[in-house]
């Protein structure tokens, strides 16, 4: 079930050791999926940057995985992109910049938070419009229904009175 559609490098352990030797800090997010190499731990400037890092990871999609974010996956590409995000954060990039960087290379597909464009207006506002319409429809339905019931009652009442009058006239 955890099938990756495209082959990934099994030797990244060696590559990462190379990079370790070259003193490049690597991001890690220890988790349970089939792994492809070691990672070391991260340094952050402050707690806020750390939060931003994890928040960004959750917004970015791992493209070779079956629907996992960069935070949850340990595929090779996910490791690389996490490293990139961390790098950019260390260089002082803003969240917007990092997201734009990813989108420029991978398209909107890489974002779990779909951008607001004309094509996604229905997506973002649809539920709330639907809720509004639903409640409105409900109120209208109720008022019209009660009107109908009132009418039918009235005609019932009229019929009763008519019957009464008829009875009276008979006796």
């Amino acid at each position: 079930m955890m099938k990756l559609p495209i082959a990934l490098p099994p030797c990244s352990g060696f590559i990462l050791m190379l990079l370790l030797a070259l003193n490049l800090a690597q991001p890690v997010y220890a988790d349970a999926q089939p792994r492809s190499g070691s990672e070391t731990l991260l340094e952050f400037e402050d707690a806020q940057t750390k939060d931003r890092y994890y928040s960004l990871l959750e917004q970015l999609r791992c493209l070779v995985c079956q629907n996992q974010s960069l935070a949850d996956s340990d595929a090779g590409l996910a490791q690389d992109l996490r490293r990139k995000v961390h790098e950019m954060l260390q260089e002082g990039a803003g969240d917007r910049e990092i997201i734009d960087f990813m989108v420029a290379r991978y398209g909107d597909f890489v974002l779990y938070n779909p951008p607001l464009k004309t094509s996604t207006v229905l997506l973002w506002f649809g539920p709330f419009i639907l809720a509004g319409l639903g409640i409105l429809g409900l109120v209208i339905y109720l008022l019209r229904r009660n009107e109908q019931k009132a009418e039918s009652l009235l005609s019932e009442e009229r019929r009763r009175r008519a019957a009464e009058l008829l009875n009276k006239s008979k006796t």
Partner: protein
Amino acid sequence: MSKTIIPLVIFIGLVILLAVGLSRDPRVVPSPLIGKSVPAFELPQLHDPQKTFGTDDLKGQVSLLNVWGSWCVSCRVEHPLLLQVAQQNLIPIYGLNYKDTREDAINWLDQLGDPYSAVAFDAAGEVGIDLGVYGAPETYIIDRNGMIAYKHIGPISGRDWREKFLPVIQQLKNVKS
């Protein structure tokens, strides 16, 4: 009857959507780089680390850039086709060796044949990221000006070559820069 048919109408719409969906592949990621220049890079070559290969080398002719790795099983599947294309001398094929080790890559080419005019060695995958690579094999058609005209995800079949690659290559070759 008028109001009660609404759920059925909505449902029919949904079924049509799902039917169309069955013919699409949800995993293919279209590249936003089509129509844009190849992102600037300069990497050491695989066979000769002293020499480099970069964006400048891609200008001046229509070429293919094939992303591959010795670890990649699907790359073996398309390799015979690449060898054939290289033999025909139709178009230069450049390789981007992605997240591999020099030794494994060179051995692989020795074993299976080398269709590449030159191979750039992208051990860390940084250039891959800039190109929007998310797996191998991936192949780009690059025009004379170094712009990405087409990107193919996955191994190239004979059919892909005839129906998708050749038309684009012919068209690009006919355009004078």
